[in-house]
């Protein structure tokens, strides 16, 4: 109906689709098609080597752990920022967005420097036996940093809009504080927390810049999937690199579908 009155539909849509296709869709399709120049057997041989499997495992477990930590911390931080007052609260609230704005390479550099044996935090932790640099713990730590804002920023608005009256009603009807949290508040927080979890997870799976600073990047041990792709590329194994990238893309695609389903589900229940 707008189409008759408002101008620019055809031109605008044409331009949108053309730009999207040229910059994003066609390049991605080309990359995937490159992987399928390999025969099925070659493809499997390329993406299912012990080295690649080790890389998927590390990428997946480190990202999963980081996203889980982010859900726990994110819920506490969002809750505290919405419900309590304390000195410096506004500043802490603004701090939450730092990982979105700070280049990941800078984050990697800083973290590697903080946790080495003579770094600010390493000085305390390394004598206690907590090694972070060149350890899997370090990879999880930088992934926690890069994904930190997701859960906080998805849960926060939901908590803000939660009706105080719903809790009051629960209290008047004799619910204890714990009951009212479990029955009234928690069900509302699960959908946004899940969305935040998925976003943080997806981000962590593709992360590269921050990880290479703090990890030794040694194959079989400390090599995440994106590092494996770079190493395949540097040895001019283009089709193998494309094949590994296709596996990673497939996984991202599944997560994207999950995000969309969660979004729809939370809007229906919200």
């Amino acid at each position, binding site marked *: 109906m707008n189409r008759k009155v408002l101008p620019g539909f055809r031109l605008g849509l044409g331009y949108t689709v053309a730009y999207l296709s040229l910059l994003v869709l066609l*390049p991605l399709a080309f990359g995937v098609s490159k992987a399928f120049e390999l025969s099925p057997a070659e493809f499997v041989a390329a993406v299912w080597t012990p080295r690649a499997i080790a890389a998927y495992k590390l990428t997946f477990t480190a990202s999963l752990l980081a996203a889980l930590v982010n859900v726990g911390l994110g819920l506490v931080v969002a809750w505290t920022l919405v419900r309590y007052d304390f000195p410096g609260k506004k500043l802490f609230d603004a701090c939450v967005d730092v990982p979105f704005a700070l280049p990941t390479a800078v984050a990697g550099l800083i973290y590697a420097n903080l946790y080495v044996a003579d770094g600010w935090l390493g000085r305390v932790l390394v004598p206690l036996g907590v090694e972070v640099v060149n350890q899997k713990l370090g990879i999880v730590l930088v992934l926690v940093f890069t994904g930190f804002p997701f859960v906080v920023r998805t849960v926060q608005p939901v908590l803000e809009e939660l009706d105080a009256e719903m809790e009051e009603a629960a209290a008047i009807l004799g619910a204890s504080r714990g009951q009212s949290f479990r029955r009234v508040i928690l069900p509302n927080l699960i959908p946004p927390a899940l969305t935040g979890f998925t976003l943080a997870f997806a981000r962590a*799976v593709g992360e590269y810049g921050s990880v290479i600073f703090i990890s030794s990047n040694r194959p079989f041990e400390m090599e995440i999937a994106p590092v494996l792709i770079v190493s395949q590329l540097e040895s001019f194994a283009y089709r193998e690199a494309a094949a590994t*990238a296709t596996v990673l893309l497939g996984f991202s695609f599944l997560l994207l579908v999950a995000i969309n389903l969660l979004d729809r589900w939370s809007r229906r229940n919200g």
Partner: protein
Amino acid sequence: MADPSQRGARTRTDPAYIRLPLIAVTVGTLGLLIVVPLASVFVQAFSAGIPAYFRALFGNAETRHSIFLTLAVAPVAVALNTVFGMVAAYVIARFRFAGRTLLMTLIDLPFSVSPIVAGLVFVLIFGQQAALGGWLQAHGYQVIFAPPALVLATAFVTFPFVARELIPVLEANGPEEELAARSLGASGWQMFTHITLPNVKWGLLYGVILCNARAMGEFGAIYVVSGRIAGKTDTMPLRVEKLFQEYDNPAAMAVASLLTMVALVTLFLKVLVERQMRAQKARSAEVPAAE
């Protein structure tokens, strides 16, 4: 009793034995994860004194070039995505058509693609081994390991920012004023520059600021397409990594401190713009909708 905010405040505050530990966890988390790292960049960057800091930044030709290159590449990518974001948001917010939801999902796609994969696909297309890349090179056009590839890779990873910020803003505004302008005889271009654009200027600025921060800080995609040629294709984030590999920590921290300042300015502007957007929303809520 009469003040509803008072009543809300009472039910929303928990007893001290719950409240204080949660505040402690929050302050501790944000402190260790974010505040201490930020402080350490500046302390380490300036640890050898202010003259040494500026020497590290501007005394080295390769570092100087990386600053120049970042300042040259990011605006081009941001400009491309701003024009796209504006057009895409207008089409998606103002019209209903088949495939609209799919289009929105596809616009978000680059956020779910690893930057390394983004860089890889451009190497596969424009590398010397590729048909198109080889042909272009034979005709004197260098794309890969050169600024054009840096722009392409940066534009890819920052693709969704402006569009996804603008779509909700445009949708919240509604088409009434635009329809009125059209019925009063405004041309399409007049309508766009006098009504559409001014109405979403804060949302547009918001998207541009975030897009720019990501563009200047992009690492993975550029790492792959640039070939990392010092003094030629190294941007600031790549320069940070190279200095780190060369064990020149003070210089790496100096370049990192510049990027950190960009990030902090970005967040400061973001807070300002958010305030303007809230104010604009409140203003438009005060005026009763023309029935």
